[in-house]
């Protein structure tokens, strides 16, 4: 898999050299009949394939939502599993149309990589996990520890910042692929494993004995995880951004996949606009006017995506926290559709 990494990185860099300028991304996607979506190598709750290679997760649901808006078919998606080293190249070289892969929105990524972030599917922060029998209760106790981390991530940088600011000595053990990071941590190579707190919860569910591990209380960074698209195609940017807003708006208006058909006859003008009963908000995007209806009908609103993949009733067991809607004490907020 790692020869693959090197080869793909080189190939993608070459891809930058030979991809010819193309028409709009939407036209290209419509012409090929499916959406190319970049996802993780397997993070429970976010994007993970099952035994039949059917992908699921909240970020996979986002890809499915885009496909539903474009094709009225949530399954018209091809998934490409990417490691942290490949993801931005895959997007900027045109191998994928949208990157929905636990990727932190940062200023340098937004301004220098030729990509644009379109929303925040999950507000996260970096945490640390250790074995219980280590007897550690705070990140500050980790002086002299070996810490496993994935290469080329914001977590790698945050950790260096945090330990340097707190004058704590440590040794980073860096792997290109997430499976290797987890295997090395579980195998005892490191005292601690760091990534986004949600990722720690996700990976812990896959350990042989999840109860042997504890996630430390400190959250040392802001990790807004969201989808991104190539820079330079404003219409595609708008589609990606408004698909995200539509699922938030649907939750706020109480429209779910179960009641969306009844809601078609709602008297609430906001719901009428969302579902394309009143006005046409699809055409300016190059989509049908019932684009949002299709998303909600086929997949559901943000709350449904959250609860089905990472919510309290799943193995991940995450609370909404800051990811609740602004009306419920969180910071998820969509501008009005009108």
């Amino acid at each position: 898999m790692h020869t693959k990494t090197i080869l793909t990185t080189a190939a993608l860099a070459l891809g930058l050299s030979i991809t010819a300028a193309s028409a709009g991304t939407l036209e290209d996607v419509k012409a090929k009949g499916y959406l190319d979506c970049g996802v993780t190598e397997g993070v429970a709750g976010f994007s993970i394939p099952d035994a039949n290679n059917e992908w699921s997760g909240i970020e996979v649901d986002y890809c499915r939502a885009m496909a539903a808006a474009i094709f009225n078919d949530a399954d018209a998606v091809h998934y490409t599993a990417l490691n942290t080293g490949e993801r931005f190249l895959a997007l900027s070289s045109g191998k994928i149309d949208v990157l929905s892969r636990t990727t932190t929105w940062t200023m340098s990524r937004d301004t220098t990589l030729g990509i644009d972030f379109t929303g925040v599917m999950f507000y996260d922060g970096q945490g640390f996990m250790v074995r219980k029998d280590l007897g550690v209760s705070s990140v500050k106790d980790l002086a002299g520890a070996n810490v496993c981390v994935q290469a080329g991530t914001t977590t790698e940088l945050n950790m260096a910042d945090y330990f340097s600011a707190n004058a704590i000595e440590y040794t980073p053990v860096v792997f290109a692929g997430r499976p290797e990071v987890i295997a090395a941590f579980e195998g005892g190579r490191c005292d601690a494993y760091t990534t986004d707190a949600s990722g720690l919860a996700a990976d812990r569910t896959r350990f042989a004995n999840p109860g042997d591990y504890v996630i430390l209380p400190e959250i040392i960074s802001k990790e807004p995880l969201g989808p991104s698209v190539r820079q330079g195609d404003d219409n595609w940017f708008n589609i990606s951004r408004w698909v995200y807003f539509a699922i938030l708006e649907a939750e706020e208006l109480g429209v779910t996949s179960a009641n969306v058909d009844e809601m078609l006859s709602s008297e609430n003008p906001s719901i009428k606009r969302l579902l394309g009963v009143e006005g046409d908000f699809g055409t300016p995007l190059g989509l049908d006017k019932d684009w949002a209806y299709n998303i909600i009908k086929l997949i559901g609103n943000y709350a449904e995506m959250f609860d089905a993949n990472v919510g309290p009733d799943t193995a991940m067991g995450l609370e909404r926290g800051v990811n609740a809607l602004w009306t419920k004490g969180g910071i998820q907020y969509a501008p009005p559709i009108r």
Partner: protein
Amino acid sequence: MAVQDTSRHEPQRSSFLNDPVVRGRLYQLLTVVIVAAFVWFIADNTAANLARQNKTTGFDFFWFTSGFDIQFSLIPYSRASTYGTAFLVGILNTMLVAVIGVFFASLLGFMVGIARLSNNFIISRLALIYVETLRNVPLLLQLVFWYFAVLKSMPGVRQSFIFLDGVVLNQRGLYLPKVVTDAQFAWVWGALALSIVAIVVLQRWAHKRLEATGQRFPVFWTALGVLVVLPLVAGLISGTHLSVDLPVLKGFNYAGGIGLPPELVALCLGLIFYTATFISEIVRAGIQSVSYGQTEAAQALGLRDGDRLRLVIIPQAMRVIIPPLASQYLNLTKNSSLAIAIGYPDLVSVFMNTTLNQTGRAIEVVFITMLVYLTLSLATSSFMNWYNRRIALVER
């Protein structure tokens, strides 16, 4: 005798295209134009695409603060260092593995190659099994095996294997005692240098004496004696004080001494055991290429067994061994880039993965990485070519 008219027959003038010289030039010109056009197309397209995607480009990032830490470094490095320093750390880590790998793979390869030719059934069969198993399993799998399988069987930090209080082996690596020297120790280094010079002189003198009188002088044992005694005496006279820095358990891990991370150990083991199989086959082929008549001739001259190998067989075998051996050294260096699979911070891991990702300068970074490997390989191969010319058979 009738003189025939041999007035020169003007060759039929045909198209200049039929002139092989002209045609050759034309083809060459055409090739150059096509290659140039292709390169221009790629360069132009890249520039256009990069501009269209609003990507920041250039090599200025070398002077930016890197912001990430590296597990293992031969030079001082921290998160406040620049990407340029990180790049150097990567190159040095790659070169370290290459040097260790080439040295031990050659040693093991020569031993196994000779063992393969042994008359002892068990030794030659063991060598055969080793060669045929390891060279037929992909290197990446072997590295993953060494790292994940061997690592998992190591004890945890608190249950470490400890030998003689100084050598510690656990999941976090191999720790060795470090000898700490003081300023007086410079005398010992001086004596060591002096004894090496003395040995070279001694060897020359012994060789001359052998040619002149036919008498042998026990050079090896004398040299060994000089090498041990002279520095020892210097050490005693100068009053140097040596102390040993032992690895001790401090917090989560052992500190002090020389700590070799398991990634480095696994990578070196994988590369050495894999490459040595090829080297052993090259060595065997080289020795077998020297015909048995040479051995018989040497015996007829009355050469002893050791001299026969050293003076007759090996010099002739080396001519066959060196060129393919150089290829194996190049392979080992390039294969070290698989380090990324097991988390050793080599050039590819530090530069082409982390740096590329944090800066986003994909084309620049990939290009420089390729250039570094090319440079390392060309340097190795020019050294091996020089050595090959030096030992080539000189007909007298």
